């Protein structure tokens, strides 16, 4: 069996910044692909991803269908210290939601 599909965050404290990597579990159907029987698969894709550090919203990502399957993002946050809580939330076009959080150590 494969790994259970779930959203993952990895954070790493560096000299004066925190590196954040996100891997979301989402099929990201564009609405143009076909299944085995030749029917179009309806579009299902993440539209909005938000990232918080503690209580501050630091980044908003708006996605179209051209974001790859199981979206991956990596970025740096200036500063940061041990014990910071990094939270992400996403919403797709069907209204499905996901959330993940981690603590910087």
């Amino acid at each position, binding site marked *: 069996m494969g790994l259970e599909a779930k959203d993952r965050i990895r954070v790493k404290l560096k000299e004066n*910044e925190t590196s954040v990597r996100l891997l979301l579990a989402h099929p990201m159907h*564009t609405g*143009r*692909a*076909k299944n085995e029987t030749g029917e179009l698969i309806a579009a299902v894709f993440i*539209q*909005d991803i938000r990232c918080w*550090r503690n209580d*501050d*919203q*630091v*980044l*908003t*990502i*708006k*996605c*179209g*269908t*051209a*974001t*790859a*399957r199981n*979206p*991956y*993002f*990596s*970025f*740096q*946050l*200036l*500063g940061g210290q041990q014990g910071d809580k990094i939270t992400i939330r996403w919403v797709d076009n069907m209204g499905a939601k996901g959330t993940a959080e981690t603590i910087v150590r």
Partner: protein
Amino acid sequence: MTKNRLEQRRTVLKNIISTSTLALVAASGLLLPQRLLAHWPMDAFNAQTIEDALMALLGHADVVNDSVVQFKVGSPPSYAVNGASVPVEIRSTLEEIERIIVLVEKNPNPLAMSLDFTAVVNLPFKSMIKINEDSLVIAVISAGGKLYKTSRMVEVDIGGCG
């Protein structure tokens, strides 16, 4: 006679008032969901050309071609075997970045993603996108009220939007 006519007038007035209030309510009710939906810029993501997408997203499309944006697509650069997941990496020496936009010229809808930065977010930014066919991939950075654009031609073996 006069009484009748007065009553008629009254009902007509009443009707006018009620229809106009109804119209007002309908108008405000119709406006509301649009405002609520505005958090995902649908026009921009459904646009068919780069100019339209930028116009819908930013209100203008005057971009400066600039090399202050370092931009890598594909690995090895400018080439991808599988268009369904092509790595993108954006670096820049610019400060006060407000927004980064990634567009793929030949995709059915060019706008791939739009990132709203705050002051604490720093580059490099990395992600994966889908590319339908050999195409220019464009990164637009909005910083200090100006738009800086860099583009790369990417060759794709297998299209990624099917």
